[in-house]
């Protein structure tokens, strides 16, 4: 941390940080009090306003996982004691999570090993003091648990890998796998009533973010009610009731907008319920001439 920044720190900050250092027992990971205070200043600088009071700062910092933050920073600095503790706590968990994400033992181990390299800081980056360790653990700020953060990092890495692999799959392999290459979707002849789209957009915008999240997770991502319930911290039956209520409410609002736009209620219901793109009309069959016995 720059000397200028250090000198601008309030007087109460150092004793507060020192106290937090002792409380979270950061010293047993080999982390120095200066490194710990530097980490806290960095986090406070990003998350809190510059004129934050002592009480606000202390309240915010006490809401963080300081012990795990200290462990992460000590690992990022390369302290052996910290890495021993980290491996004891999280090695098994990392492999389990990677296995759960990839559903494949070898891919899971590969994913977990790649994360280890990033956490350890195999890459070097140029810094003020020369080449420094570029450990991913430096990005952990303690807002959530370190375990949760590691899960998220694993998930991000998995998604990134998946995207990279998708781009690199050859056309020949896809053809051998039986994939048929279809033409790009054409613009539908009837794109639907513009009033309907506008009414739907308006109704969706009036929903809360949690409601839209549930709709997207369930109807777009295909998540189960139990998964959505775990994400939101409620029982799956609660999610089911909420979804029904939201869809019902959405429908009411769309109909109301359509009626307000000049449609009759019947027309509005038909417009909402009958989408030409949903119609499954076999045109070929309808154009085929009838059998001879039916001809007059």
């Amino acid at each position, binding site marked *: 941390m720059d000397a200028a920044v250090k000198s601008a720190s309030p007087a109460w900050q150092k004793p507060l940080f020192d106290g937090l250092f002792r409380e979270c027992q950061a010293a047993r990971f080999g982390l120095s009090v200066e490194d710990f205070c530097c980490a806290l200043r960095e986090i406070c600088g990003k998350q809190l306003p510059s004129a934050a009071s002592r009480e606000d700062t202390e309240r915010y910092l006490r809401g963080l996982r300081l012990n795990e933050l200290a462990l992460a920073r000590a690992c990022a600095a390369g302290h052996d004691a910290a890495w021993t503790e980290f491996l004891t706590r999280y090695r098994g968990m990392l492999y389990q999570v990677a296995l759960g994400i990839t559903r494949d033992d070898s891919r899971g181990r590969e994913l977990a090993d790649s994360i280890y390299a990033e956490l350890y800081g195999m890459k070097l980056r140029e810094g003020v003091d020369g080449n420094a360790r570029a450990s991913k653990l430096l990005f952990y700020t303690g807002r959530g648990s370190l375990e949760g953060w590691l899960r*998220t990092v694993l*998930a991000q890495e998995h998604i990134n890998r998946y995207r990279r692999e998708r781009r690199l799959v050859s056309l020949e392999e896809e053809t051998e796998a039986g994939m048929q290459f279809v033409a790009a979707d054409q613009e539908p002849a009837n794109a639907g009533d513009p009033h309907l789209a506008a009414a739907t957009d308006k109704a969706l915008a009036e929903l*809360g973010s949690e409601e*839209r999240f549930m709709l*997207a997770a*369930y109807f777009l*991502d295909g998540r189960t009610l139990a998964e959505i319930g775990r994400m939101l911290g409620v029982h799956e039956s609660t999610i089911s009731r*909420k979804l*029904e209520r939201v869809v019902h409410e959405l429908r009411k609002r769309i109909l109301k907008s359509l009626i307000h736009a000049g449609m009759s209620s019947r027309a509005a219901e038909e417009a909402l319920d009958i989408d030409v793109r949903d119609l499954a009309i076999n045109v070929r069959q309808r154009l085929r001439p009838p059998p001879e016995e039916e001809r007059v």
Partner: protein
Amino acid sequence: MSEVPKIPIPSIVRERLRAVAASGPHPDANLLSAFAENTLPVADRAKVMDHLATCADCRNIITFAMPQIEEAAVSARSRSTGFRLRWATARWSALAAAAAVLVAVVIIYQVQPVPESNMNLAAERKAATVPQPKTPPAENGLAQTTTATTDNEKQRKDIQREKELASNTISANTRGFGRQAGVAGKALDENGVTADLEASKDQKLGASTSTGAKGIAPQQSQAGMIAGGAMAAPVQIASAKEAAKSDAGTNSAAVANAFSISPRDSFKPSSLTASNANLASSNRAPAPSVSAPQLASKARGAQPQPAPAPPEAYGYGNSFAKKTETAPSSTSETVEVTGQSPQVQSRAYVTQLQLHESGKLAVPTASLPVLAKWRVHKGRVQQSFDNGVSWNDVKIAKAVAFRQVAAAGSQVWAGGSNAVLYHSSDNGQTWSPLWSYARDASAKAGYRYPKAPASITEIIFSGERYGQMRVKVRGKDPQEFFFTTSDGGQTWHEETID
């Protein structure tokens, strides 16, 4: 997806949902993990939720980052003390437990032949002025001894006084939760605070119902009640050490055996086992004697009655006995008193026996530690340090009519007409709002939790972490929500009653 919604979504809605562009930058791993763990402040959570509603990639990350169902189930099982209520299961469990209790009562009430060696002791006990339950002797298996001499009058009065004092310390929270009683007992041990919820009107299961579970008792206490029929849990007793010192052979045997026999077994002073000897030589401080009748009747919210020993008393006590085994040795012996009806009755019996043997009272008559009791009276939270003789108003918040208070150790929770849950971690000296219906429920999901006047109608905590709360919403569309917590009330999750 495996579940099909009952109301299908129109295709146009699905299409417009997909068309909405992701709002704002992607949250970093810290925010996403904190969101998944539900530890973000309300404002930050709303922002992340707003982004997640429009960004499929971040939703996928959240899904992958959630603990797997198997892991969550394992961790929930390892954390849970069995407190999560499944109402349907709890109802059936309650019915099954009630039936088992009835069967146990029938068995216990069967008249058992009393061996000759017990005849004198039984006669002596009957002659004592200590209130005896109007039940067959076999119910407790110990109503066979008493002192017949006039020298015992004074000791009996002392014991009676101790029982009356100790019986008033029963926490309402212990009514129905074996663990809760154990924790409450521990709380008594540590801080001398009990929570005495007023008017547990529904006592269908006797000592095992709580103000929250109307006629539904957690399985744990029911199991304890069922196990109570056998009464096998040993108890550290106060005067065991003295008993061992004074007359090691007979008294130790008496002490030990009093707690190791079943109600149906005969008393055999000579049958001293090694384990019982260890039990007898325990250094635990003395616990005052409390009669089972008074304990059980107090648990039922009734006035203490001298006469009956309700059948529930057995089971009621044993579920806590094992918990108190691990309670630290301290000057507060209310840990052992709370809910230990059969052991306590054994204590009374043992006391009489020791009196008979040594001619002096072995149970010390030291004054009981001061215990704090809590109640809500006319919308005000009140605290009493003199066992309910006088009550002091506790200032928490203005213009709030409180309806419920719960305590576990030094942790106290109170709520009422404004649907704000207040919490104190220092026995009620300072309070802070912990959870608010308007801020933490209605503001986050207004379609689910309507913005209407609400009040907290029920608060129950089985310990410092696990609790439940009921919120009633008034207005045009009155509703009721049931929440549970596993972190002392910091976060609450709605439980559905299906």
